[in-house]
């Protein structure tokens, strides 16, 4: 009895430090759209990084993920499912960027001996957990970036042998991916902010992205104890133009067809932030809140109205919108395929630095499937029509059917400039079984990734405090003067030379006829010499000749 109760006490004590926070940020965008970003953060106070420690007790942290972490010795895991493309020119930077389709990157522990094997099993397990086609991740689309993807959590592992990165640009995200994602939340979608997540509304939007980030972090500033952090984020951009019939008025109910009533009972904090930085006097919030918060996010100081869900509210915002002009985000990138015809082409990646006077370096990472055979000698980097020599190039050539190309470059972007990276490629002719069922749709090339420390307009906060809003504390800030930004370009759709699969019968008939009848007989005619044959002598004569030959007498003719 005593043992049992002390065990219970121990468990309770240990579990008491698990924590769950939820947060919703609503930001009216420059283009008139509404950006809603959910973040759910679960802290799991356990440290199975140490050898031999077996964890079997789960309180808030989803067991399915916890088991995956320990089984595959995962140090850090980032997975995102995105439907749509984040329009940087109209919407500015997102809180957490993600490329169209599915993206997965994982850091394994340095104790793992068979990383590729672990990676393969992990993708298959995750594909089951998230109901996604992550099992299509194999060696042909996996790369090991040397510099672009550093661990975001504790520990500074730099050996990129333990990193795996893969994207599936074709992956389509739908409700079947949302449901398992919601199930990972402690309250599910029954209480708290998650009640807003009705799929018919979330997928009736311009952009939808959901992600799971798991990493080890410090529990306190001294970093005396470690914890696992699970961040689930969901970003949606609602198009007021199509749904609002021209009115620039929105409410939670209009966007999600639900209102907020209560916080998740398990949550230690549950907040709604409404960004009112752009012309706050024009906003009319109802109900009004006296609570204003400020946060520095992505190099910009923003003001927020904060609603704490202790008091039930339903918020309504009236906001006039300035339509029209494009934004000029400090860092912006786009990509396209140049040229025509089905033999060669050229990939152009254009990176814009819109900072008026500061130059800064960016890391460009390109992972190109093997069936686009890159001519790496044609790689050029030009800024302001001058050659721009990258200070670091990491290139791993592709192996046909085994490994994609990986190209990483550190490029210095001059202030207020456009930098163009071009490389030519040849389109491979695939084996006929390697074509997808819809070969004329084309083949996808994943987004290239531009990572940079962008000079900040305001001082960034470097110390880590708990009361910071979640959305501004994801990427650790190391210095005051700059902040980390990752920009994904659009994926490419490239047509490869495709045989006409609809008429194999005709083709087989034609080729067989040509080969058999045409070529065969012409070959015959050309190689053979024809001569008139004497009719063979009758059997009796041949016998007689045989005898004569034995006797040595002249033969009969």
């Amino acid at each position, binding site marked *: 009895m005593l043992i049992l109760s002390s065990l219970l006490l121990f468990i309770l004590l240990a579990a008491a430090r698990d924590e769950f926070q939820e947060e919703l940020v609503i930001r009216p965008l420059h283009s008139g759209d509404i950006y809603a970003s959910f973040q759910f953060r679960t802290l799991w106070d356990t440290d199975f990084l140490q050898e031999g420690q077996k964890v079997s007790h789960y309180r808030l942290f989803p067991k399915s993920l916890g088991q995956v972490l320990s089984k595959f010795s995962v140090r850090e895991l980032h997975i995102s499912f995105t*439907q*749509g*493309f984040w*329009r940087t*020119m*109209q919407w500015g930077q997102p809180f957490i960027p993600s490329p*169209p*389709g599915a993206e997965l990157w994982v850091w394994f522990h340095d104790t793992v001996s068979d990383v590729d094997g672990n990676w393969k099993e992990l993708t298959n397990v995750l594909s089951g957990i998230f109901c996604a086609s992550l099992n299509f991740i194999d060696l042909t689309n996996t790369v090991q970036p040397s510099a672009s993807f550093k661990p975001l959590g504790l520990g500074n592992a730099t050996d990129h042998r333990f990193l795996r990165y893969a994207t599936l*640009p074709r992956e389509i995200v739908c409700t079947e991916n949302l449901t398992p994602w919601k199930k990972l939340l402690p309250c599910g979608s029954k209480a708290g902010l998650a009640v807003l997540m009705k799929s018919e509304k979330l*997928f*009736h*939007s*311009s*952009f*939808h992205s959901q992600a799971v980030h798991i990493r080890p972090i410090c529990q306190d500033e001294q970093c005396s104890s470690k914890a696992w952090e699970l961040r689930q984020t969901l970003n949606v951009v609602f*198009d007021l*133009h*199509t749904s609002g019939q021209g009115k620039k008025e929105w409410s939670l109910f209009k966007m999600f067809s639900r209102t907020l009533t209560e916080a998740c009972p398990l949550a230690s904090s549950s907040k709604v932030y409404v960004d009112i930085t752009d012309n706050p006097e024009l906003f009319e919030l109802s109900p009004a809140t006296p609570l204003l918060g400020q946060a520095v996010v992505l190099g910009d100081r923003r003001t927020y109205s904060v609603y704490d869900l202790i008091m039930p509210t339903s918020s309504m915002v009236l906001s006039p919108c300035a*339509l*029209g002009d*494009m934004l000029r985000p400090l860092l912006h990138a*786009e990509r*396209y*395929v*140049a*040229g*025509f*015809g*089905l033999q060669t082409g*050229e990939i*152009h990646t254009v990176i814009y630095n819109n900072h008026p006077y500061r130059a800064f370096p960016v890391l460009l990472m390109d992972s190109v499937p093997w069936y686009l055979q890159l001519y790496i000698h044609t790689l050029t980097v030009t800024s302001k029509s001058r050659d721009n020599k990258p200070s670091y190039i990491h290139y791993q050539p592709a192996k046909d059917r085994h490994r994609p190309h990986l190209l990483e470059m550190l490029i210095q972007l001059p202030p207020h400039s456009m930098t163009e990276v071009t490389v030519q490629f040849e389109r491979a002719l695939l084996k006929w079984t390697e074509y997808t069922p*819809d*070969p*004329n*749709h*084309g083949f*996808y090339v994943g987004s290239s990734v531009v990572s940079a420390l962008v000079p900040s307009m305001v001082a960034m906060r470097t110390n880590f405090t708990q009361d910071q809003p979640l959305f501004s504390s994801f990427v650790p800030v190391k210095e005051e003067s700059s902040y980390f930004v990752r920009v994904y370009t*659009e*994926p*490419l*759709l*490239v*047509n490869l030379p*495709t045989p*006409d699969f*609809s008429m194999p019968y005709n083709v087989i008939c034609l080729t067989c006829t040509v080969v058999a*009848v045409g070529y*065969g*007989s012409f070959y*015959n*005619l050309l190689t*053979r010499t*024809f001569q*008139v044959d004497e009719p063979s002598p009758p059997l009796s004569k041949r016998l007689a000749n045989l005898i004569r030959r034995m006797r040595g007498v002249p033969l009969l003719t």
Partner: protein
Amino acid sequence: MGLLSDPSRRKVLTGLLTRLNTPICIVCYLAGIVWFMGLAFEPFTLRTYMSENAMGSTMVEERFSSGERALSLAKEFDAHKRKAGGMPVEWLVKAMQSRGLEVFTQSFSRKLPFPDENKERYMVRGTNVYGILRAPRAPRTEALVITAPCSPGNTNNQAVALLLALAQYFRNQIYWAKDIIFLVNEHDLIGTQAWLEGYHHTNITGMEYSPLQGRAGSIQAALSLELSSDVITSLDLVLEGLNGQLPNLDLANLFYAFCQKLGVLCTIQGKLQRNDWDTAEGYTHAAQTMMLMVLKQACGRSWGDHGLFLRYHIEAASVRGINSFRHYKTDATTIGRLLEGMVRKLNNLLERLHQSYFFYLLPSLSRFVSIGYYMPAFGLLAVILLLRVSFPGLCHCFSVSLQPSSPGVLTVLTPVVISHLTGVALYLLPVHLQEMAVEHFPVSETEAVVLTAIAIYTAGLALPHNTQRLLSGEGTEQGWKVLKLTALLYLAVLLGCTALINFSLGFILAVTLVPITASITPHMPKALYALVMVLLSPAFTILYCVFIYQELIEAPVSVSEGWMLFLSVISQGILDHALYGSLVYPLLALFIYPCWLMFWNILFWN
């Protein structure tokens, strides 16, 4: 083929071919012509059908209703166009922005090699305005394009206005899976060319343009809209593109299906469809429609803005509103609905259009002739050349001439090289010598170019008298046979390749070139045959085509008007080559004409 490996039967066969060579050739020629004319006969053709599943059974309900608004927009656009004295760029940018598109502009400039007198332009400067409607939750990988040219004067205002009205309507719909690009291009084809080159970052024609800022992935299909009146009687579908390329037949099927659904009169080559195929008039009508298509395709130019898209593997067609003051009228709302339906079906596409035919002829919108049906017509003509090659005298002398000691090869080489040099001169000199010509003669630049071309062409006829005698003395009997053999094989390869790419051009050239080239020898009455040869030379073929075309579009011309048209066709051909990369002019100048000159040499062989 056992027939060929049996020596005695082979002898019989070759004997038969030798003896009956001429009759067989004549029969083949006539059969080719008859086969071709038979293609327009309805029972011999196939009914068109939608091959693409994604566009077939899915029903689309059209709800576009702001046709009236489009027409008032057209008036506004017209006013701004007049005020700006060209394309009202700022107004268009604002109009597109207010409709929720991402708007970009592209400026371009192009100096033509010589002034274009038809369109009165030399230094062309312009701006393209395009707006991209971003599809929700789409990753910017696929796009559709709708273009309307901003033409000078009163034309095409309604097209631009309808484009804007459609943009507004489309912006409020949620079902888009592909981005839609609305392009208003200035200076018709030159603007389209600049935009396409900018979009694909290529430069094949020496155009100067500013780089594009916004893109939307790979373009799947494009529609070009030309509309110049508030109501129309019929919609005409234009398919012929650059170098005789055609879009996938499914695009035509799609247009036809929606015309049927919405009850809009639709035409092709400006000709309505008739149902009385069993009467003589019905057949003639179908034959005329098909002949028009053949002529348009053969000339290798782009007959609308769509034609330039085809090079980039983008299926495209032009829809042209015709107002012929008949009773039957269609309003702008219906046209808008038709386009809405077409764009929505294209939006449903999972793959590029590839299911249906790329090589076809259309005797009417509901009937088509596929490549398998029309190729035999050309094959029957081409086989004549091969039969003449196997003509006994020729074959024998070839094997002799191949021996290194024989002088045959050299005698052949001289006329071949000289003919081709003439061809190169015909290709290069007209454009490069224009300044000199303008200085010395009282003509404009355009006239100078065309007249230089004709002068070089004519000068080429004088060559055979001087060349051989100069270089190799007396021509031998064997010499001309080797030359004829080479020329026949050369022509067969040329025509065969041309017909594979552009059937119409290959067929027309075969019809005129084959009879004379097959029968030519030096032992014929020279004056008579020289006349016949000239009358069947490539230049005269163009002249005949001009007259036949005018006859077919029911605008017959007198001889002098026809001559003027002929001159402008030549200048247009040279311009098309320089501006858009059309290949007909270089093909004729560098290959067909030298080949014809080789036969001309045979006639005057001494």
